[in-house]
């Protein structure tokens, strides 16, 4: 707010007109009159936390309730609760399991998929849910650009989708596609949506929102809360909690305090310090899950287009694999795990996080680029990177090793890692210019190829196809600025393996082996460098939630699951009403506020009386 010193003094004043004086007096009176009313607003009686309401702290507001538009995790998580998908992921194993589709068959060429849609599923308004709804959803995404906003990539390869009858859905593909059992597309009701004019601006916010999931979205106070009610007719077991409330709380500290106070039942995205602090707290359970995300950085190997046109201004020496590998050897991943994540992370091996043990790959002893500054220095010495007078090495090409490093300023873990990297790389004679910037600035640098080191991280789905695909040569930009990838990586062997795994949809083990080989290439080339898989840290009130399903089980997370399992399985604790009682502290506070207000009122009244008495 505007803070002000004493202003330049107003000119000396002459006695004022009666009118002016009266105005001033009226103003004061008005101010005085409103004051006690405003200060005295006492705390509300702790709101009725209905018997079985589960309140979840959300750090983002929703962007849209339309499954065609929603991109934020909070929104897609809510869609998981309110809509059905063709397939789901098993809560224990992450493997695809039947969802709306009870079963499916594939043609021999892998181009035709036929799904049998569950009979008896209904929309929350009572209409039956049929294959027609699913066909309509996919077709609309294929035909309407607005409807493709959020999930268009799933249908980009679709040739046609048709509902053969009420329970049979047939999808024809242009090329084989590995994600046909991982189509994360909410199926929307055709009878509601077919009349929508413009999908790019339809926000689907007429409550209750007609859906088919275990919960129904019933209310939204923008930037405050979203309410969902249990769908008693859900074809799986109906949820145990009657109501879910997502409360928007952008501040992490506020979330934790709200959890302590019992205002919310669940918080996610804890910092390591918060997790440690909450561990010792009564009635709070901390859930530590191995993460779906990896954190790392990429090294600019020389930005180029698919046609081989070079652009950007990456440091030329970084085209040298030896230098890239030396950089990796200078970094202490265990140190990052300890000081950045307080131990709540795993030092990374391959590209796919350890959580997905089918695809996760670890380098063997001979391949490992373990922390060893001495070895890194030796590598660089041998490769002809001489140390200059100021301790900074100079490449054989004559360029000093001064590298820019772009770090997202909105991710505290990256910021801390960046600082560590600066010091560690200085040990091997590389000077780093730490550019901690807004994500937008960072992506500008990435797309224009004007960077040396740049931080990155991806949430890896149970099916790793997408995160692998972004490092194929086909992901390079067709012209500068249009890249899909985040690394300008291009390797013929990698591409060959990528095609191979894509076609191996019917051979899970073979596919996993191929995916591991791809990670090996990424590791050896040291362009895409994964540092850690950070744990997901969450906590809930065990006096409000008796039990809750994690995914995968054991060791999985609650928030951001691939499915609705956590909230549909959560069981209310027997004494969950206890939190609703008005605490003695609140009463004390109420008392204090009332006292102050009374005191103030009496003071003003007495002054009034005194003034009156003073009148001549």
């Amino acid at each position, binding site marked *: 707010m505007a*803070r002000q*010193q*004493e202003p*330049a*003094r107003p000119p000396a004043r002459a006695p004022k007109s009666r009118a002016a004086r009266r105005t001033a007096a009226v103003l004061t009176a008005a101010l005085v009159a409103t004051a006690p009313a405003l200060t005295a607003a006492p705390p509300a009686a702790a709101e009725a936390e209905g018997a079985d309401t589960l309140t979840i702290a959300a750090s983002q507001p929703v962007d849209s309730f339309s499954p065609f538009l929603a991109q934020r995790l909070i929104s897609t998580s809510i869609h998981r609760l309110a809509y059905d998908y063709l397939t789901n992921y098993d809560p224990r194993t992450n493997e695809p399991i039947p969802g709306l589709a009870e079963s499916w068959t594939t043609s021999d060429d892998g181009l035709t998929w036929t799904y049998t849609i569950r009979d008896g599923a209904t929309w929350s308004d009572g209409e039956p849910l049929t294959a027609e709804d699913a066909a309509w959803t996919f077709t609309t995404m294929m035909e309407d650009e607005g409807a493709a906003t959020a999930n268009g990539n799933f249908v980009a390869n679709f040739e046609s989708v048709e509902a053969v009858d009420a329970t049979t859905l047939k999808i024809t593909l242009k090329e084989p596609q590995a994600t046909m059992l991982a189509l994360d597309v909410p199926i929307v009701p055709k009878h509601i949506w077919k009349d929508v004019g413009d999908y790019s601006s339809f926000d689907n916010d007429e409550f209750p929102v007609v859906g088919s999931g275990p919960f129904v979205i019933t209310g939204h106070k923008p930037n405050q809360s979203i309410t969902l009610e249990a769908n008693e007719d859900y074809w799986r077991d109906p949820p145990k909690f009657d109501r879910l409330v997502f409360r928007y709380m952008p501040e*992490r*500290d*506020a*979330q*934790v*305090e709200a959890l*302590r106070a019992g205002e919310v039942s669940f918080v996610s995205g*804890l*910092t*390591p*310090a*918060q997790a*440690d*602090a909450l561990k010792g707290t009564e009635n709070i359970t901390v859930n530590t899950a191995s993460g779906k995300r990896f954190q790392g950085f990429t090294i600019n190997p020389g930005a180029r287009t698919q046609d081989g046109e070079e652009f950007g201004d990456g440091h030329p020496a970084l085209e040298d694999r030896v230098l890239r590998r030396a950089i990796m050897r200078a970094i*202490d991943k265990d*140190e990052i795990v*300890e*000081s*950045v994540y*307080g131990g709540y992370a795993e030092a990374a091996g391959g590209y796919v996080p350890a959580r997905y043990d089918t695809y996760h790959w670890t380098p063997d002893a001979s391949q490992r680029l373990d922390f060893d500054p001495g070895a890194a220095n030796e590598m660089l010495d041998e490769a002809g990177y001489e140390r200059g007078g100021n301790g900074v090495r100079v490449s054989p090409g004559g360029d000093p090793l001064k590298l820019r490093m772009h*770090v997202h*300023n*909105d991710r*505290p873990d990256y*910021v*801390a890692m*960046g*600082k*560590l990297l*600066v*010091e*560690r790389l200085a040990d091997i004679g590389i000077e780093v210019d*730490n*550019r*901690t*910037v*807004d994500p937008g*600035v960072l992506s500008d640098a990435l797309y224009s190829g004007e960077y040396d080191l740049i931080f990155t991280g991806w949430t890896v789905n149970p099916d790793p196809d997408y995160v692998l695909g972004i490092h194929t040569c086909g992901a390079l930009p067709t012209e500068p600025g249009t890249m899909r990838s985040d690394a300008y990586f291009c390797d013929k062997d990698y591409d060959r393996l990528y095609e191979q795994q894509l076609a191996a949809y019917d051979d899970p083990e073979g596919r996993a082996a191929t995916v591991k080989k791809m990670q090996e290439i990424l590791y050896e080339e040291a362009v895409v460098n994964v540092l850690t898989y950070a744990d997901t840290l969450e906590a809930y009130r065990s006096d409000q939630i008796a039990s809750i399903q994690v995914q995968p089980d054991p060791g999985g997370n609650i928030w951001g699951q691939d499915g609705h399992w956590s909230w549909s399985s959560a069981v209310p604790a027997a004494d969950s009403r206890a939190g609703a009682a008005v605490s003695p502290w609140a009463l004390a506070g109420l008392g204090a506020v009332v006292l102050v207000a009374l005191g103030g009122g009496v003071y003003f009244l007495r002054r009034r009386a005194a003034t009156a008495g003073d009148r001549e």
Partner: protein
Amino acid sequence: MSRAALAWTRRRRALAGYARAFAGNRGGMAGLAVLALIGLAALAAPLFIDADALSLTEAEGGRFQPPGPGYPLGTDAFGRSVLDLVVWGARISLTVGFLAAFVSVALGTLIGVVAGHFGGWPGNVLMRVTDWFAVLPALVMAVALAAVMTRSTLTIIIAIGVTAWPTTARVVRAQTLAVEARPFIERARALGGGHAHVMLRHVLPNVLPVVLAQTTLLVAEAILMEATLAFLGLGDPGTVSWGGIIQEARTAGAISSGIWWYMIPPGVAIAAVALSFTMCGRALEGVLNPRLRERR
């Protein structure tokens, strides 16, 4: 005695008078004492804090160690002593405060003196521009500027300096008008003094007291603004500043984790320095502005 020497003696006497008056203001003296102490600690910091203590990889303390022997204010996530960080942070925070205040005061003085001296339409145009800048929300402007430029301490200084000058310009213009109305300016003009001569030799020395008080008050603002920008994540990640420490504490979740020793000291330091500058500024204003002094 030459004219120059005479003028010098006159100014020295005035200065001594000001100093005495300032010494009589207890708030001002207390502020000055605190500032001197913090300034000294900041200057001498390299003597008793070695580089290792601030290094993320070399620091020896444990993670988030509470205050205890060896670490009077505990440690941060990397095991660095928070006391060391706060002392070291004074260097950046004070530098930013001073330089930003300097930039804005220099800009404001230039525009204020020119606008006041020339008057007429050029002065009017300058004051319109000033008014218009004053209308722009300072925080919003500073945030936008800091986001546009690369992350560095210099950026912060410029962002604060460029947004805070209109106040100074207005105050200086008013003072310039007052000075120019005095007879000695008339005399100087009659003796053939050009615009530059009048502005530099006569107006400037006479508006400087006001400017000085203004600067002192602005330093407090600048330090608060630096903390604010750092809090919004726009600080320079490579340096240790008070705002930066608060931001780090906040992102680590220190508040809700009971790690008070990470959060409280930098905030107290900011408040102490901002308060000290404000006290000094008020005292200076009282001393230098005779109209204010009369009524005290």
